[in-house]
């Protein structure tokens, strides 16, 4: 099976700071890392390859230094990687990003399955995966928490929906975005780091794409107007219950069920 994993370089810290005056994310002096959710997608791909064979490719979009996350994917076991990098891609919103990556995917050869993390930890929109699938005209499932069965022409997936957990079968080629419950990601290997020292990260820019209409990329292709950027609120709500042991146990069970922990 030929699997493609979409990965993104994000700021390393989870404490995102926003400049109060300009409303721009402060990235100075902040190291970067692979978006944590993408690690789950990559792990899923590597497990499927271990089971049925095939290739795992990765694709990312970003400035040249984003090649670092592709090298990291190599250190975890990915076979090849492509970075979509062009000044003309800069300033892309969700729509332009999805379109750009979908154009990149078309240059990647035969793909059965595209895997994305559920969302990124910097943008937090969770929209790029599904929008890309729409551009590629393939079926997609979001928030996958378990692969139930891998068939020849399809895959059975358990997905975490707001009020329910659903199981669906979806035909290849398709796209899944995965949740962190799916598999514990492996760690990058130092041995592989030595092995892949000279492995190339292929760079693609606008001129490699089928659609070279600049109006569809970067700031030009982004209808979204950002009014304000702010860090997500941190939820520190606490509930305190009183009652007998039995009452509290019932209440706790109900709460855990409601939150789908049990």
């Amino acid at each position, binding site marked *: 099976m030929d699997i493609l994993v979409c990965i993104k370089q994000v700021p*390393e810290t*989870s404490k995102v700071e926003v400049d109060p005056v300009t409303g721009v994310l402060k990235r100075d002096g902040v*190291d970067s*890392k*692979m978006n*944590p959710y993408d*690690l789950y997608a990559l792990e899923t791909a590597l497990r499927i390859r271990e089971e049925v064979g095939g290739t795992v490719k990765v694709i990312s979009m970003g400035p040249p230094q984003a090649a670092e996350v592709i090298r990291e994917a190599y*250190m975890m076991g990915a076979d090849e990687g492509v970075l979509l990098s062009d000044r003309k891609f800069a300033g892309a919103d969700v729509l332009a990003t999805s379109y750009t990556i979908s154009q990149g995917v078309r240059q990647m050869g035969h793909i059965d399955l595209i895997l994305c993390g559920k969302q990124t930890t910097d943008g937090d929109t969770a929209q790029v995966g599904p929008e890309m699938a729409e551009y590629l005209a393939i079926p997609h499932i979001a928030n996958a928490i378990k692969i139930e069965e891998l068939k020849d022409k399809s895959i059975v997936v358990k997905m975490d929906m707001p009020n329910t957990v659903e199981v669906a079968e979806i035909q290849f080629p398709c796209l899944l975005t995965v949740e962190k419950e799916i*598999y*514990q*990601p*492996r*760690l*990058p*290997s*130092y*041995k592989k*780091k030595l092995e892949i020292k000279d492995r190339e990260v292929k760079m693609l820019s606008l001129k490699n794409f089928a659609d070279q209409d600049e109006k569809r990329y970067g700031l030009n292709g982004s209808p979204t107007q950002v009014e304000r950027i702010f860090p997500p609120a941190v939820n520190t709500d606490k509930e305190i219950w009183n009652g007998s042991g039995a009452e509290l146990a019932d209440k706790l069970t109900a709460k855990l069920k409601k939150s789908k922990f049990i």
Partner: protein
Amino acid sequence: MDCNCTNEYKQLDQKDIDFLINLLGADRVLVGENINEDYSHDELGGISKMPEVVAQVLSTEEVAKIMTYAYENTIAVVARGSGTGLVGSSVPIFGGIMIDLTQMNNILEIDEENLTLTVEPGVLLMEIGKFVEDHDLFYPPDPGEKSATIAGNISTNAGGMRAVKYGVTRDYVRALTVVLPTGKVIEVGGKVVKNSSGYSIKDLICGSEGTLGIITKAVLKLLPLPKKTISLLIPFANLETAITTVPKIIKSKAIPTAIEFMQRECILAAEEFLGKKFPDNSADAYLLLTFDGNSKEDIEKDYDRVAKICLDEGAIDVYITDTDERKEAVWSARGAFLEAIKATTTEMDECDVVVPRNRVAEFVKYTDELQEQFNIRIRSFGHAGDGNLHVYVLRDDLPKEQWQKKLHDVFECMYKKSVELEGLVSGEHGIGYAKRPYLFNQLGNDSIDLMKNIKLAFDPKNILNPGKVCQ
């Protein structure tokens, strides 16, 4: 272990309780059924006894007044923090008054000019770590049990997982306020970097397990926070190959903050206990190394050499643990080993011997042999880099008598072996009640007599945590 001590102390009566209520108010004086059973034991000491009264104190003055009263009336007193000890140090084996210091839990001052942190005794280790990191500062001692109180850590001279590079708790105590068994209050040490002013009482109090005085305030030394840490998780085909690699790492002069070893069984137990997967469980044994520094590049240079040494010595691979998520996945398991192993058995006891670092492999191999010889489960993990081992003997389905006999025999063998390897009885958990026989065996009369005289100098009536350490 049953306590066979005779009680020569005054039993508490209503007058004594009234004194405490008068001093603290009824809310903070627990008597009879109001005393939670937890106060009678620690995490593992194998001994339990209820105090007659628990006094929840809020200030040095309150502790001093209680101690003065106890001294006048010859009442036994034991100080207690979170109760996370492992050798019965905080168990009131003579009953009496238990002083619970957990409500004295304020961080009093961070002094960024002297790089010190002043805290009350009941502040938890996890709170200190978080607080100082917010100021870009660093309190290096890192014992696994983060819910321990700082005074508990000082009292056992806890070591933890960064000892290889940074040393132990005692190295980070600048000053202490101590209530003596007589009720007098002394200040020892100061916010000073150097100190040659007479005997170092401060260093004597560190590691004295609540037998010489009650710590009511501590000034801790801080360091600038290293900006980055990276851990390496290194799988090996077996434990012997893993541990024999350690002296070679140390010899390479790279200084990791931690070198821990762990076995597959512990990892599986932790996965089960935490309900989450470890990033790799395919190998039989692992070393876990941590490096810190100010940039990723610096640290990479440091660990590169060590990674190559490990591969040369037969490591299966070297996994890089560089982001918060990866560290969390690896270190949360490491932090849960003790509880996880505990959950797999009915009862267990531990041995926390420390041996020279080049003898660790020999000792661990020996515990494996004991496992066969006595047909009992023995689990170990620990600080390969500083020679401090945590070896747990598990009871499982053994009947009580057989268990006690086997445990005793296994412990005898292990402590004998540690002496043979030029090690010591305890690396960081202390002596308390449970490990006294082994301390006596190893140190001999001259040293024990000296310790007893020190105890006498501090505590002429022997009322503070009696029956512990050297008694």
